[in-house]
């Protein structure tokens, strides 16, 4: 097929060409509106807002003060770095846990068990994130189910608090991210021919060699796509860190929330929002570079 755009421009003067152009225009208009209104416009506004500095009540000036404030105040960039590192950790743990699950669903589950297993991964997501997180709180709190069971079994002598720590925070985030890792991984692994795995063994490969040289390279686009999604969701999560993280679990989104909502400092909040955008873009870019995957390729293959 010839490029429709070129064909259209070659026949600009004919009514057919015009019609085609109009069609193309109508086709891409929703996409442009979508991007423009919901993605670009708000970001431009936040970008501008982040550059305004308060001098006095209702008096603002343009400057990078909000960004300097971010850099000069250790609590802000500590939280920022902590959020980034924990998000990477959460992504890695999610990958390690999801991979066997996805491999099982894609390659070993047969017949009806396959959709059932998939459904089991999906069911928790019918409830809202809030409800899921509350569920974890019920389980982990000092007066909760796990603590009770531990005492009942005689493993713990007194109530055990498992909530409000980095551990519970990571647990909740991994749980929330798993589905988004399992789906692209399963997709990627399903396209792996069984014969490839068998060939891997047949030529003398051990389980580890087959996993490392055949299964993982094949699943790479799924791994990268899943990791990007999980990382983005984790970095931008708000509910889980607030509810499970507790007194030490300050997440960068909480900083943004508190700047916007409790400090009424929109310019500072906007600057933080921009930093978060830069962070996720930067880490995703780094991840793609390290794994040698192209972004468009990753999107296409999953």
């Amino acid at each position, binding site marked *: 097929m010839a490029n429709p755009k070129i064909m259209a421009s070659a026949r600009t003067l004919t009514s057919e060409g015009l019609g085609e152009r109009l069609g193309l225009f109508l086709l891409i208009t929703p996409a442009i509106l979508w991007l423009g209104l919901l993605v670009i416009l708000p970001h431009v506004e936040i970008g501008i807002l982040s550059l305004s500095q308060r001098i006095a009540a209702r008096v603002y000036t343009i400057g990078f003060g909000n960004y300097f404030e971010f850099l000069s105040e250790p609590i802000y960039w500590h939280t920022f770095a902590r959020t980034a590192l924990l998000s990477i950790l959460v992504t890695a743990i999610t990958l390690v846990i999801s991979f066997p699950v996805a491999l099982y669903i894609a390659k070993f589950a047969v017949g009806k068990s396959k959709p059932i297993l998939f459904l089991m991964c999906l069911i928790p997501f019918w409830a809202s994130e809030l409800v899921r997180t509350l569920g974890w709180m019920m389980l982990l709190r000092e007066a909760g189910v796990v603590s009770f069971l531990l005492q009942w079994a005689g493993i713990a002598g007194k109530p055990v608090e498992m909530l409000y720590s980095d551990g519970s925070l990571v647990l909740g985030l991994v749980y929330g991210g798993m589905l988004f890792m399992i789906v692209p991984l399963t997709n990627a692994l399903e396209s792996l021919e069984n*014969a490839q795995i068998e060939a891997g063994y*047949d*030529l*003398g*490969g051990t389980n580890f060699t087959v996993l490392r040289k055949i299964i993982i390279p*094949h699943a790479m686009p799924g791994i990268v796509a899943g990791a990007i999604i999980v990382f983005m969701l984790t970095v931008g999560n708000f509910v889980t860190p607030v509810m499970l993280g507790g007194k030490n679990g300050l997440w960068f989104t909480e900083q943004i929330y508190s700047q916007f909502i409790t400090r009424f400092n929109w310019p500072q909040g906007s600057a933080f929002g921009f930093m978060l955008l830069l962070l996720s873009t930067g880490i995703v870019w780094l991840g793609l570079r390290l794994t040698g995957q192209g972004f468009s390729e990753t999107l296409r293959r999953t």
Partner: protein
Amino acid sequence: MSDIADLSLIAVTKRFGGIAAVDAVDFEVAQGEFFSILGPSGCGKTTLMRMIAGFESPTSGDIRIRGVSMLAVPANKRPVNMVFQSLALFPMMSVGENIGYGLACAGVSGPEAAERIARILDRVGLSGFGPRAVTQLSGGQRQRVAIARCLVLEPTLVLLDEPLGALDLKLREHMKIELKQLQSAFNTTFMYITHDQSEALVMSDRVAVMNKGRFEQVGTPRELYHNPKTSFVAGFVGDANIWSGSAAGAIAGGTRLKLATGAEVTGMGTGIDDGVRAYLRPEAIALAGSLDELSALPNRFPGTVSTVLFDGAASTLVIDAAGFPPLRATLPQAGPLAGIEAGAAVAFGFTPEALKIFPA
């Protein structure tokens, strides 16, 4: 040939549920032999091969390679390598990496591996293809990479699972010859699985015809073609006119047979009962302008050409004759009948030896 066979199967049976996919199969493959298993899909040949490769384990029986039982040896430790139907080349690796994979698994690396890869590529006619992506290769080249990937490991036995199935006709014909040449050049034992009798007959030293989990007959291509031992083999190997009828009694030099369509003919067969099936190859039918010319043959009949199926050397006639179903005969490429047209009168005949009779 050495005293111990490269591969021997002893009463190997594989049951899935209650059904025996492979039913008490015994055979041996000698060193350097090109051995084929020929059978229709679902006959159990793939299961048999997967048991030899180590992907399935037999329900009972033993599989031995050079006398050593393989039952406790996992797939990745067997001196057996397989060329898959889809070839299963690793798409994310280059040609060289595909071939080097098995070497790396065997602990061969560095210059030695590089040298062995280069040597095998040279021998399969792909010198300098090492750095190429496998996706850039043609069908035939991919085939050769798949075989080189096995041969570089110097296995006792190479299993090939219909590797030519995906190729187009011309290339398939070409690859048949090439495979055979490769096999004799490397002098490695090949076990080839196919449902295509032409592939089996052309390449193999010996062929096993498999049906419903059992071996019907094992023999050279010639034996199978000319002396089928069972009705199935006669029908599956090569082309034949197949008639059903009933035995009318033994006579000197053969068996009288009355076809369901009426004609009486003389053939050869053993263990014949009431219902029989008779097989006559199209090229075993002699054609002539008149019955007189066929006076040497006990079976000779007049007929009319209803269709000429022209296919070069493989051209056939469809003949209508009283008492026979439409029958096919090979058209000679020279002589007075070469130009025969539909509607012409023709006489045909065959020896009793050519008509194989089996119980139905």
